[in-house]
């Protein structure tokens, strides 16, 4: 009964099945924990609007998740529940529909928590410092960032303020915060999970994915949210396997590629040592590894910041004060003209990073610059994808650090956008190539900050990620460690 919020979903499901507990007790424990620590962590936004008690789905149906609460990032639409992308320009927005992943969660019996998790505004960021509501604090060191843009979801799972969470990942926004917070985060293959109802950042890169306490919970959640959706024309009609069947503690014979370009002079030496230790451990379990080359790695960040910002400039054109959210000078509507209203609304409603990306994206698409920037970036994207296609002919998976450093201090990188962008260097390529990737905890620095190990596999081979991640996890205890709050 005590501290149910500290358990994993699969442990809670067992207790629910044995009728030891009922779902309401889990929600109570969670809310108690949120009241205790969220003033320090700030993983959630608009908290005072949490209703008591929440509606729990009690109908049987195919009730896999049995009323377990799921915490949702603020860019995923939930019917009747504010969804604001942590931006001033979407304040008060209440979607009139559920995203497909939310629909699937409800059908599986999950309880959607009615406070959303904090994020960088419109998913623009790697630290959650760009949120209109202020930053989330890393539960392992409250002076540090939780990572971003799904920092709220990762911090909540890490601090046991959430059982299961959803995030979104465009350039690393699930995996990097998962690594910084010592939890599991998975970015599915592009097209595996429906984007219908995800407020778009970059339509050719975005994916929704799970952030969880362990690999088994991640597989559970992937089973529920994955699958073809006719409402998302980029979703793929490939059967969803039962990912829990890949949770096998056996990696004998698995061929791992270690890209030399990811182990470079600039990375934190502790991260390097911890990763090498983890890779050796996998070798001890029967996997083999070999150095490989992904020659176009050094261009990935540049390619990403052209393509992603270009797509963002298009996707964010809809935020203009007309249909929803913030509108500048509402009371003087008759004295302005429309263009003036657009400019003032967007100038006032968007944060600095959003403006920076939209203007950069507009620039690279504009007449005279399109070929030199956008078209060129699309071609280099092809080369980056080819690097992976080549590698997966011989290797089952690729292992890298998730981030070159552990969590940095709040305020450390915010004044230098380029420095912030470079922290995505290991995660970005997976989005450009559309391949699945998972981050699992693999150690701690001397200062007690978590370090993440990233596994990449070929498209629609999440099973390989689960198999390797599970075996590694079951032979270590990183996932059992909790921050002291």
């Amino acid at each position, binding site marked *: 009964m005590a501290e149910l919020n500290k358990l994993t979903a699969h442990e809670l499901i067992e207790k629910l099945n044995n009728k030891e507990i009922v779902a309401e007790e889990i929600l109570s424990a969670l809310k108690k924990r949120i009241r205790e620590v969220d003033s320090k962590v700030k993983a959630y936004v608009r908290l005072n609007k949490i209703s008591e008690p929440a509606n729990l789905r009690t109908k049987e149906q195919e009730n896999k998740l049995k009323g377990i609460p799921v915490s949702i990032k603020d860019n995923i639409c939930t019917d009747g529940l504010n969804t604001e992308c942590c931006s001033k320009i979407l304040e*008060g927005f*209440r979607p*009139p*529909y559920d995203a497909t992943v939310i629909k699937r969660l409800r059908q599986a019996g999950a309880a959607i928590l009615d406070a959303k998790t904090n994020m960088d505004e419109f998913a623009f960021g790697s630290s959650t410092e760009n949120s209109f509501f202020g930053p989330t604090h890393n539960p392992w060191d409250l002076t540090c960032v939780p990572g971003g843009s799904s920092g709220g979801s990762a911090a909540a799972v890490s601090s046991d303020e959430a059982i299961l969470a959803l995030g979104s990942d465009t350039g690393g926004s699930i995996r990097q915060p998962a690594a910084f917070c010592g939890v599991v985060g998975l970015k599915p293959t*592009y*097209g595996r999970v429906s984007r219908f109802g995800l407020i778009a950042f970059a339509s*050719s890169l975005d994916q929704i994915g799970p952030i969880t306490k362990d690999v088994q919970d991640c597989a559970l959640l992937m089973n529920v949210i994955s699958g073809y959706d006719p409402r998302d*024309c*980029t979703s*793929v009609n490939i059967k969803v396997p039962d990912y829990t069947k890949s949770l096998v503690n056996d990696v004998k014979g698995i061929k791992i590629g270690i890209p030399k370009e990811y182990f470079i002079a600039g990375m934190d030496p502790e991260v390097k040592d911890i990763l090498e230790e983890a890779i050796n451990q996998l070798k001890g379990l029967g996997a083999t590894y070999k150095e490989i080359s992904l020659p*176009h790695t*050094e*261009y990935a*960040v*540049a390619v990403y*910041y*052209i393509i992603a910002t270009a797509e963002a*400039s298009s996707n964010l*054109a809809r935020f*203009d*004060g*007309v*249909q*929803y959210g913030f*509108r500048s000078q*509402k009371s003087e*509507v*008759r004295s*302005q*003209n*429309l*263009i003036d*209203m657009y*400019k003032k609304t*967007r*100038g006032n409603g*968007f944060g600095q990073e959003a*403006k*920076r990306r*939209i*203007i*950069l994206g*507009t*620039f690279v698409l*504009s007449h005279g610059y399109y070929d*030199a*920037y956008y*078209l*060129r*970036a*699309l*071609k*280099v*994207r*092809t*080369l980056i994808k080819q690097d992976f296609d080549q590698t997966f002919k011989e290797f089952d998976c690729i292992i890298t650090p998730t981030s070159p450093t552990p969590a940095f201090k709040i305020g450390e990188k915010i004044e230098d*956008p*380029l420095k912030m*962008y470079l922290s995505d260097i290991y995660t970005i390529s997976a989005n450009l190539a*559309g391949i699945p990737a998972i981050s699992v905890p693999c150690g701690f620095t001397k200062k007690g900050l978590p370090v993440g190990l990233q596994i990449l596999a070929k498209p629609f081979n999440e099973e390989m990620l689960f198999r390797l991640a599970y075996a590694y996890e079951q032979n270590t205890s990183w996932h059992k460690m909790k921050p002291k709050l």
Partner: protein
Amino acid sequence: MAISKDTVKYVAHLARIELKPKELEKLSKQLQNILDFIDKLNKINIENIAPTSHILPINNVLREDIASGESLPIDKALMNAPERQAHFFVVPKVIE
């Protein structure tokens, strides 16, 4: 590639974003930094490489032109409107 303050101002106009003078100053410097970094892409030989605008081998995803039966009622469609009148979103004048 150099980007002038005037160019940034013009692009902001295209993007319908009003920038304060201090913002314009700061942003121009930051964008110049970013563009300098991006210039490394000019080193690569992209001759005969096809662009990848979409990562999946699927094209022209269409459906039958039949109404799905699930329409958003007007009140729901307008419920987030900053200003509305009857069945319309109200905006400042469009025509000069």
